[in-house]
């Protein structure tokens, strides 16, 4: 957060790192990762990184279609881990495999120290899973849904617990409404409340803030950060860039392949993208011209400016030089969205 760090090119993901830390999974992983990286994650996890999620080579196909391809990932305790990727890239499928909802075709790994393939029943009580699609009972009231969840987890002092939960999540005024009658955003907030009710040590949240208003989203992220400070780990899939920036680390997956796994800063730096901002007249025509030029990877309009990025500084500058006279050109930081779009385009080619 404070400073940009000089960590090695990629973390964990490459096959070289897998064999070194495969046998002694739980205790001896601190040295395997860059030591500088642990404090970079805001020094939250005092333990310095016992892996909460540690999977290698996870693969899942539906029919002949490989949906998650040989995916390895490691998430440490207290980490907020963002999970991004285009639609249909396999995020939901991967998360479902982690909490025992889908059986992996191959690969192995642990979640909270238990084997995801054989010990799903031990994992479940400690995981809070929020599915992408609303999966509470629409024909139960908000309170009944929470109460049912509390019963399933065998929580003591249910009435008080549910009451607190309703209060803290702003759901109290809907307590006796049917869940099906809530608006989309409130449904999301109910689902979130339900999956944190049993105080899980790992949150698996599949697009938890889709359709949630900005105020509630901020509340949500504040809450996630508070939980993380207490040592709760969160794997959160999202399509929002501002949310991605609030994560300690990110993974980007496209068409089943894990393309990158790093901090926000690391991702931007390693992408090698250079971005310039251009403002002036006739931006639309200009964008059409620039799009076809060599060295230009993306041209995106932001209000009265264009953001033009490309992987090579020299050829990008060459492409931009003709409009130097008529427009103001300024080099700016590349943002995450440009990095992800760049990654996604790269992934489609092979």
């Amino acid at each position, binding site marked *: 957060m404070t400073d940009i760090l000089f960590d090695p090119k990629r973390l964990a993901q490459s096959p070289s790192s897998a064999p070194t830390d495969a046998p002694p999974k739980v205790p001896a992983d601190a040295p395997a990762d860059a030591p500088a990286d642990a404090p970079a994650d805001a020094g939250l996890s005092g333990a310095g990184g016992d892996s909460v999620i540690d999977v290698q080579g996870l693969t899942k196909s539906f029919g002949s279609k490989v949906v998650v391809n040989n995916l390895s990932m490691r998430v440490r305790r207290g980490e907020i881990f963002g999970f991004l990727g285009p639609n249909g890239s396999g995020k939901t499928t991967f998360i479902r495999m982690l909490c*025992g909802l889908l059986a992996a075709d191959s690969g192995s790994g642990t979640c909270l120290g238990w084997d995801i393939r054989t010990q799903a029943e031990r994992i479940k*009580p400690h995981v809070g899973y929020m*599915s992408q699609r609303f*999966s509470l009972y629409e*024909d*139960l009231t908000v309170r*009944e849904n929470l109460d049912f969840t509390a019963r*399933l987890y065998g929580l003591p002092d249910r009435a008080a617990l549910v009451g607190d939960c309703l209060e803290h999540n702003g759901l109290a005024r809907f307590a006796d409404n049917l869940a099906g009658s809530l608006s989309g955003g409130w449904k999301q907030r109910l689902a979130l409340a339900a999956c944190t009710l049993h105080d899980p040590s790992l949150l698996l949240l599949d697009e938890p803030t889709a359709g949630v208003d900005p105020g509630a989203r901020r509340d949500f992220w504040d809450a996630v950060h508070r939980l993380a400070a207490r040592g709760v780990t969160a794997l959160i899939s999202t399509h929002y860039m501002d949310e991605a920036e609030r994560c300690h680390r990110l993974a980007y997956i496209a068409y089943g392949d894990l393309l990158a796994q790093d901090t926000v800063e690391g991702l931007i730096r390693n992408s090698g993208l250079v971005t310039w901002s251009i403002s002036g007249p006739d931006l639309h025509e200009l964008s059409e011209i620039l799009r076809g030029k060599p060295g230009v990877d993306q041209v995106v309009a932001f209000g009265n400016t264009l953001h033009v990025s490309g992987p090579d500084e020299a050829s990008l500058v060459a492409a931009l030089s003709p409009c130097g006279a008529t427009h103001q050109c300024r080099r700016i930081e590349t943002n995450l969205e440009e990095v992800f779009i760049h990654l996604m385009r790269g992934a489609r080619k092979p």
Partner: protein
Amino acid sequence: MTIDIGFTFSRFAAVVYKEFIQMRRDRVTFAMMIGIPLMQLILFGYAINSDPRHLPTAVLSADNSPYSRGIVAGMQTSTYFDVTGQLSSRAQAEAALKNGDAQFVLTIPEDFSRKLLRGETPVLLLEADATDPAATSGAVASLREIVSRAIARDLPGPAAELAATDLPVTIRVHAEYNPEAVTQYNIVPGLMGVILSLTLTMITSLAITRERERGTMENLLSTPVKPLEVMLGKITPYILVGYIQIALIILASKFLFDVPLRGSLVPIFVLSLVFIAANLSVGVTLSTVAKNQLQAVQMSVFFFLPSLLLSGFMFPFRGMPAWAQVLGSALPLTHYLRFVRGVLLKGATGMESLTHIWPIAIFFLAVIAIGMLRYRKTLD
């Protein structure tokens, strides 16, 4: 650690409680659970209450006397019988019944009037095509009255007095094609099994498929709840529904259809639990196979039809070919029908009924075992 791998009562109770709430709110399904029994009772009850008249009747009379003519005329005016023709041989009589030209053949023996006058109680033979017993029973019941009136009118003084107190004729009824002679009373208690079978199987198969279809299974599977807890938790509320249906049908039998209930209701209520459980287990197991609610309904109908046809409800069991009897013996409804009829109509006790219950219990255990094996703990 508070992890328990086995069955936990509180989680089971949570599922039961949730199901009750949902059942209460799901008006359509609730209406179906009460509506189907009522509809079937009314449909079948209507068939039972219908009192068909003008049934084609052929007469094979070897006695041309005022008495026999009086009887035939009396039958015609009763409107139950439509005397369509006179036959002249046994062969013709048999053919008429077999082809369905006649529902009844009345045979009046040669010496009918002579014996009657001598006070020797001659025999009248009424052969009925009883494939549809409900159709013939009303007519058969009326015959005694018709004969008695016809004879009393035509007999001379003292013999008529005699006839008024005691029918001087033996009426012998042969019900053809229906060895079990299913009567209307057989049907209403039988309906109990049929209704339980249909509604319970269908509703449970829907209950679990619905969780998959609505996506709530995803949440359920991510919690620590176990398959057995879910399955039993879903079944339990419907046991109550089953009992409501039983009570409804028994009340209807007694007050709507005047079925004489001989046996005690205690064995009915106690032992029906096994049958209810068997049907619910079929529903649960079907729902582990069905991909959506439509399939679940289709599969329960697929199970229900053979039950209806081969159990002895629609067709007399002993009249079926051997292979059908074998198939029928595997179905719980077959045994349940015998049990219910045994208790309600013949006054059998609970202990005597156990021979009909254990095949149902075996069926239940086998099916629930399949269901447990098939219950998917994952979404794929």
